[in-house]
């Protein structure tokens, strides 16, 4: 893809760097820039630890890693206000962490423990934290797109100026819910920003083999009023800038957006799937690894003197300690109480329920 090429080259030549420095640092304070890096490193280290725990059988079910895509979550979510909403599919560890869900609560969830952010009921695919408006964690491809429109509807309903950020995978652009959600968001002017994380594959199938469109972002053409932009998803600042533009449109003009972040997942679709194999070559993965969003961004911070190599080491060390502590916390957290198995089915009263539901027990 043309856009990919241009992206991959750019930022590699010193001159580009010079040119970019000012515009690209978006006038952000050094602290903010560092925190962007810190968030990406935390997400990376967190998932490396999670993968390790999965291998050890401490985590079960499906575990979908985000490694390689960190710039998308870090750039996009930090463009939000605290009272905004974030919703995602099942590859959402990094998004939860960036949004402010405690690493220990996420890790405990993966371990299926009572202190997990979803009390051990949801697992990796279903992370929730109402205190930071993190709305999950949805396992049915596309199902959260109309839900995001509903959050946007509620914002307009209450005449608020909040926005809803919704992440989806590239393969989700072929499902009907995508079409129905975007049509409603555009027609009713809902403050929702849909970000396609185009990592080129839906499981083992290249998106170019199932979607009858070259640039997924162009699907916005079917919905008048829907702003759209394709973004370099390996560049945290470009993600941040594009999302800020979309957030402004949503907040000030109730204008929804469809962004396409060009990115890549370095690991397999899930722990069951090898990082490369039948559907993609080792070379392809290596090529993208050469464009690691964390490496390139830290290089720039260092090259521009905003951070020292040692500063980076310390930041990385802190992240490693945080996830280690999270793992210990998860390990120590109790399993959900079996006597409360029925407590979370209904929030309200449920007449003559559990007692006779399984009289055979």
């Amino acid at each position: 893809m043309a856009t990919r090429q241009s992206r991959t080259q750019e930022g590699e030549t010193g001159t580009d760097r010079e040119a970019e420095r000012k515009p690209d640092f978006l006038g952000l304070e050094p602290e903010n820039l560092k925190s962007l890096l810190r968030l990406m490193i935390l997400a990376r280290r967190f998932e490396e630890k999670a993968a390790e725990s999965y291998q050890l059988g401490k985590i079960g079910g499906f575990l979908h890693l985000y490694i390689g895509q960190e710039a998308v979550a870090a750039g996009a979510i930090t463009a939000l206000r605290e009272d905004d909403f974030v919703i995602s599919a099942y590859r959402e560890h990094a998004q939860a962490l960036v949004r402010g869900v405690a690493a220990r609560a996420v890790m405990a969830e993966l371990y299926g423990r009572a202190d997990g952010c979803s009390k051990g009921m949801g697992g990796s695919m279903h992370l929730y934290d109402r205190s930071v408006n993190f709305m999950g964690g949805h396992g049915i491809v596309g199902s959260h797109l109309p839900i995001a429109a509903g959050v946007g509807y509620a914002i307009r309903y209450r005449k608020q100026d909040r926005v809803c950020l919704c992440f989806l995978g590239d393969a989700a652009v072929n499902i009907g819910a995508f079409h129905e959600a975007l049509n409603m968001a555009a027609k009713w002017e809902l403050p929702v920003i849909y970000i396609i994380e185009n990592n080129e594959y839906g499981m083992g199938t290249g998106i170019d083999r199932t979607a009858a469109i070259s640039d997924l972002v162009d699907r916005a053409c079917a919905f008048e009023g829907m702003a759209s932009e394709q973004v370099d998803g390996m560049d945290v600042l470009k993600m941040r800038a594009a999302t800020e533009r979309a957030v402004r449109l949503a907040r000030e003009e109730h204008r929804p957006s469809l962004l396409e972040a060009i990115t890549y997942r370095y690991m397999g679709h899930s722990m069951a799937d090898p990082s490369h194999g039948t559907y993609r070559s080792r070379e392809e993965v290596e090529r993208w690894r050469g464009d690691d969003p964390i490496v390139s961004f830290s290089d720039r911070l260092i090259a521009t003197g905003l951070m020292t190599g040692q500063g980076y080491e310390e930041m990385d060390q802190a992240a490693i300690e945080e996830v280690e502590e999270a793992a210990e916390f998860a390990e120590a957290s109790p399993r959900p109480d079996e006597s409360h198995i029925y407590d979370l089915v209904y929030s309200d009263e449920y007449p003559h329920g559990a007692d006779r539901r399984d009289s055979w027990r």
Partner: protein
Amino acid sequence: MALATYRDALNQALREEMSRDEDVFLIGEEVAEYDGAYKVSKGLLDEFGEWRVRDAPIAELGFAGLGVGAAMTGLRPIVEFMTWNFALLAMDQIINSAAKLYQMSGGQYNVPIVFRGPGGAALMLASQHSQSPEPWYAYVPGLKVCSPATPYDAKGLLKSAVRDNDPVVFIEGELLYNIKGEVPDEEYLVPIGAADVKRAGDGLTIVSYGKMVHTALDAAEKLAAEDGLEAEVIDLRTVRPLDIATVVTSVRKTNRALVVEEGWPVANIGAQLVDDIQREAFDSLDAPVARVTGLDVPMPYARNLEKIVVPSVETVLRAARQVSYIS
């Protein structure tokens, strides 16, 4: 007490709940400018405006999901399906999202939403438009499923459904909208999960819900007149959860039970009732629990066929006599 149609009773419930709580809104096809395909939402657009009474595109999955998202933020959407036949397109949102979110989120996001619309056969609408969806939803934990038979119950149950903090599947009778019944002037609620004895008797227990309750009552009158047998007719009103206690109490008294429903015969509400009755009243049963259901066929268009597919007073009578060993 004033007489009101089932349609008006529902309209009253919507108006009252929307006036009481500004978080309540209605969304569905034709609900606003057209007053609803069955006029259940008559006048609501003028009274509450477009954000609270919203005409939706034909996108059942989409607007059901939109309702779920709004409910997660604390609003109380009422999602109208023009008929439940079209909700087959929205089942993923009802079952995979609405019914599971509260537990999946560890109790952080409850989903106070009502999915409502007409179900069952009407007149010659053929197979795609004549289905009884209750069993599909009754199977699913996380949902509550109501199917009222009278204007009184329709209004009281819908108000309870709107106030319920969990998803409620509310199935109205497409052929009941015009029936009249007493509806109190003062406010009242009908609790979800409580059956109602619509006719007292000690000769036989007939259990039903929705439209079929009327067929059961008519059959009961005939049974009394022609066979001197007084049937007790129980209206479940809610099919999830099932008020088994009320049913079992009656069967312990009558020793005979007949379940009447409009839907297909397999893995339905009646089968579940048989399971509960035989387990909880085994020794009281003088005969196997009998059942009357719609025939096991997609609904044909031709009126003469439709007539024999849907349970009638005659088929109910025949089954009632069978189970009572009257020939």
